[in-house]
């Protein structure tokens, strides 16, 4: 409907401009003697942390991908619709391949906002995610943690 009238101009604008090297940041100012041994590792075309939330049932969501500081807000937003209502919330973790303290923050925030209205149930975490949940002490906060085999 609102396509540009000049299609050639439109196409021209779509051609990506290669920009592989970041040039800001003056290494001569750093106190780290190793700084000049480093190669620039970052490719600016790499997308943010791959992560999304699927709502599989009314009170159940599935976390898919990697949960860190780069996907924290996506996880918080994914739980918001469920926190608007009352009742237990179940989070399926079987497809969560990485989680750090940002993930713990998401879950602790969810548990606290659900206080008195329902419980938080985590299901199917892989062994390393389960280890992080245990170190963080989520069971001690009243979060139920179950393996994925059977309810």
């Amino acid at each position, binding site marked *: 409907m609102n396509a540009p009238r000049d299609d050639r101009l439109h196409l021209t604008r779509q051609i990506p401009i290669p920009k592989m090297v970041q040039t800001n940041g003056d290494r001569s100012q750093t106190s780290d003697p190793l700084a000049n041994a480093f190669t620039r590792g970052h490719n600016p075309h790499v997308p943010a942390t791959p992560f999304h939330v699927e709502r599989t049932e009314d009170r159940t969501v599935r976390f898919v991908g990697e949960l860190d500081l780069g996907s924290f807000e996506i996880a918080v937003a994914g739980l918001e619709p469920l926190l608007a209502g009352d009742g237990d919330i179940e989070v399926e973790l079987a497809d969560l391949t*990485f989680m750090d303290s940002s993930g713990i923050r998401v879950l602790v*925030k969810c548990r606290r906002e659900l206080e008195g209205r329902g419980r938080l149930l985590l299901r199917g975490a892989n062994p390393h995610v389960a280890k992080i949940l245990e170190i963080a002490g989520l069971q001690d906060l009243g979060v139920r943690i179950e393996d994925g085999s059977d309810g």
Partner: protein
Amino acid sequence: MADVRSARSFPPEARVLSEIRRYVGSEIERHSFRSFKDDLLLAVTEACSNAIRHSGTQEIRVAIFPVGSCLEITVSDDGVYRPLVPAPELDGEGHRGIHLMAAVVDDFSLHQGTPSRPGTTVSLVKCKS
């Protein structure tokens, strides 16, 4: 000084954390420390996240040093270290990263950047038993 076998720098942005893990993960596998991979990727992510959130640095540098049966990974920045609460309140939302990081590695050390001498370096070590 140990030989720097592999090192890269990244901008201090949360969206590069996944890329940092892919880089560190491939180095860990190259050096046959695969059994440590999950723990080290967690620790590196926490260290980089702290630099991104708190230090004000312009870049983050990640270096990997195989030393005998141990693997050391350093995360350094040019910023100022903000003191974090070492023992997180159980129900609090913040400052869990240091606690998790220290729990999953064999040795953990922190050189703190100050306003007069910026530059924080976190060292994370895992050893084969």
